[in-house]
C-alpha cells in the first residue's frame, strides 16, 4: 500500500522510466551484469573476432598486409574467401610446435619454481605478527612501482659476462672465467620467476592468512608433528590458493615475450617471440594471428582443466 502511494507522489517521471525499463526487459540486476558483459564484448570478443578474421585471410603486400575476406562481385553477390592455409602451416613447420612445447615447458617449470619459492614466503608473511604483515606485503608489491622492462634490463646487468655476479665471483677468486648466464634458458627462468613471483605470493598469502591457527593447534594436539600437520592440514586447505597462483603465473608465462627476447639466447624458443617475429619482421599478419589463436587454445585448455579440478575441490569441500 505504501509503495503505490509513493509512486503516485513521485509523479510520472519515475513511472515512465520504470515502464521503459520493463519494456527493455532490464532489471536492476540485469544492468549490473550488462556492464561487464558489454565491456568484455567490446574489448575482448570483437578484437578476437578481428584476429580470427585476419588469421583466415591470405598475406599480401598491401596496406593492411592481407587480402580482404569479403569481396563484392560485379553481379552484386559477395564472395567470401577463407584461407585455412595458415593453420595447416602451423602443423607443417615444426618451428611452431617446438616453440609451443618449449613455451609450455618453460612456463610450467617457472610456475613450479615460483610455487616452491613463493609458498614459504607467503606462509611466512601470513604467520608474521599482524603489524608487520602489511610492510612485508608492501615489499612483495614494491617492484611493481618500477617498469617491468627496466627490471628485466637490470637483470642483464646482473647476469652478463662482466656483470655483478661474474665480477664478484672473479674478484673472490672462485672462478677465473666469466660464467655464461645471459642469453641462456637459465636467464629466462631467472627472469620469469623474478617477474611473476608476486602473482604467486599474493593469492597464496590471501589463502594462508585465512587459515585458522586453531586447526594447526588441533592437529598438533592430536599427535601430528609439524611436517605432518603441514601435509595433512595446511597444504590441502591451501590448494585453492596454489591453483589460483599457478594460473596467474602459468598463463602469462606461456606467452611471455619481453623476458625471452631480452634475457634468452638464440636457442630460447618461445611462442611470444615467434609471434613477434611473424608480425613485425615477416609482416605476415595472417600467420601471426593464427599463431596467436593456437596459443590461446593451448592456454585455455589447461585453464579449463584446472578450473574443473578447482570446482571439484570446492564441491568436495562442501
Amino acid at each position: 500500500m505504501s509503495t503505490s502511494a509513493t509512486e503516485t507522489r513521485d509523479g510520472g517521471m519515475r513511472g515512465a522510466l520504470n515502464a521503459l525499463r520493463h519494456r527493455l526487459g532490464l532489471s536492476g540486476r540485469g544492468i549490473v551484469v550488462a556492464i561487464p558483459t558489454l565491456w568484455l564484448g567490446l574489448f575482448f570478443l570483437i578484437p578476437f573476432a578481428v584476429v580470427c578474421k585476419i588469421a583466415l585471410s591470405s598475406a599480401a603486400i598491401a596496406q593492411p598486409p592481407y587480402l580482404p575476406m569479403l569481396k563484392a562481385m560485379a553481379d552484386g553477390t559477395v564472395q567470401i574467401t577463407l584461407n585455412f592455409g595458415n593453420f595447416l602451416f602451423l602443423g607443417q613447420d615444426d618451428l611452431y610446435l617446438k616453440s609451443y612445447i618449449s613455451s609450455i615447458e618453460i612456463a610450467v617449470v617457472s610456475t613450479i619454481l615460483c610455487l616452491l619459492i613463493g609458498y614459504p614466503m607467503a606462509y611466512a608473511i601470513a604467520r608474521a605478527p599482524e603489524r608487520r604483515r602489511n610492510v612485508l606485503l608492501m615489499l612483495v608489491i614494491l617492484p611493481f612501482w618500477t617498469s617491468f622492462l627496466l627490471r628485466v634490463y637490470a637483470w642483464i646487468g646482473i647476469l652478463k659476462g662482466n656483470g655483478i655476479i661474474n665480477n664478484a665471483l672473479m674478484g673472490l677468486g672462485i672462478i677465473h672465467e666469466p660464467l655464461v648466464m645471459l642469453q641462456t634458458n637459465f636467464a629466462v627462468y631467472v627472469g620469469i620467476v623474478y617477474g611473476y613471483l608476486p602473482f604467486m605470493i599474493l593469492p597464496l598469502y590471501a589463502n594462508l592468512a585465512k587459515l585458522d591457527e586453531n586447526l594447526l593447534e588441533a592437529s598438533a594436539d592430536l599427535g601430528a608433528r609439524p611436517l605432518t600437520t603441514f601435509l595433512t592440514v595446511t597444504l590441502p586447505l591451501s590448494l585453492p590458493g596454489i591453483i589460483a597462483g599457478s594460473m596467474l603465473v602459468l598463463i602469462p608465462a606461456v606467452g611471455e615475450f619481453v623476458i625471452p627476447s631480452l634475457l634468452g639466447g638464440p636457442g630460447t624458443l618461445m611462442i611470444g617471440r615467434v609471434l613477434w617475429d611473424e608480425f613485425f619482421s615477416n609482416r605476415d599478419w595472417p600467420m601471426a594471428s593464427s599463431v596467436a589463436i593456437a596459443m590461446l587454445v593451448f592456454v585455455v585448455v589447461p585453464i579449463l582443466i584446472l578450473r574443473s579440478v578447482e570446482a571439484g575441490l570446492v564441491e568436495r569441500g562442501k
Partner: protein
Amino acid sequence: MDSKAPTASTARPWRDASAKPFVRIRNVTKKFGEFTAVFNLSLDIYKGELFCLLGGSGCGKTTLLRMLAGFENATSGVIEIDGQDMARVPPYARPVNMMFQSYALFPHMSVEANVAYGLKRAGKSKDEIEARVAELLKLVKLEQFRTRKPDQLSGGQRQRVALARSLAPGPKLLLLDEPLGALDKKLREETQFELVKIQETLGVTFIVVTHDQEEAMSLATRIGVMHEGEIVQIGEPREVYEYPASRYVADFIGSVNMFEGVVVEDEVDHVRIRSRDAGCDIYVGHGVNCAPEQTLWCAIRPEKIRLQREKPEGDANFARGTVEEIVYLGDMSVFQVHLESGRRIRVTKANAARFEEDAISWDEAVYATWGPEAAAVLTT
C-alpha cells in the same frame, strides 16, 4: 550412582591429604610482554575429576588451559601431568587432548576422518582405527553422519564430533575450552548431562574452562574461580556458592546482596554486625575470625531471604522496605525491594503453588528477613 565404582565426585580425593594429584601446577606465571596473564598459580587436579576453571573474560583461564595443552610455555613455574614434567614436551607428545572453543574441526575431512586423525598419528592399524571411530561415533550418537563434512552439520553435532575427536586417542587428560559456549540453552542443558555421563563412563580427567557459572556448577566436581590471573577460590560447587572466600567470588557466582557492616559483638558462637547498608544488625550464628570494630561484608543470597508482612521477632536480621518490582520467571519470582536504608535488594521465591491468593504484590511494605546462617561473612 552408589552402585557404580567410586568416581572422583564420590571419592573426593582432594579431601585426602595423601592422595597424589594427577595434574600438578606449581607457581606458574605466564607473561605476554608486559601483560601478566597468569600469576604464581598453583593447583592440584586429581584423576577422574571434572574440574572447572571459572572466570570472566581475560582472567587467564584459557591461557592456563593452553599451557596444559602445550601451546604456550609458562614463563616460570612447573606443570606436571601424571608425574611427568611437561616443560619441554611439545603438544604432539603430551598425553593430553583439547576440545577447542571453535571446535577446530578440519573442514576438508569427513566426520570419520576427523575422528580418526589422532588415531592415524598414533600409528594404529586400519582395523583398530575403524573400530575405535565406530565406537566413538556411537558414544556421541553420530553414526549416521560419518561421511558428512563439518559444514554440513549443526552446531550441536559439530560439538559432538569435536568431543569424539579429542577422546579418540584415549587421552589421560581432556581439556575443554568453553565446550558448550556455541550451543543454545536447551541443547546446552542436554549436552551438559551427556558430557558428565561420558566423563564418568570413561574415567578420563576433564578440565573445563568456562565463564558460565551455571555450567560450572552443573558439570564440575570442583570449581577453581580465577580472577586476574590468580585462583581466588577452589572448592566443590556447593562450597563455592555457599561459602565464598571473597566478595569477588560471592558476586561472580550467582547473584548476591552484599551488606557492609562493623562488628559490634564478637563471641565464640556468634557475631553481630551493625550494617548501615541493611539498616539493621546482622546476627551470624557462628564465630568469625575478626577484630571488634572491623569492617566486614555480609553476602546473602536472594533465595535465603524471605518477605513477610508482619514484623519478625527479635532485634536483628530483618529490614523494612517496599516492593518495587516483581519479575515472574515461571519457576520462581524475583522481587526487588527498596529498603528503608536506601539499598535495593533482590529476593527470590520459588513458585511452589500454581496460584497464590494472598501473594505479596507491588508497592507493598514488607519485612525482608533471614536466618542466622544465611549470611556469608567476608573479610576481603
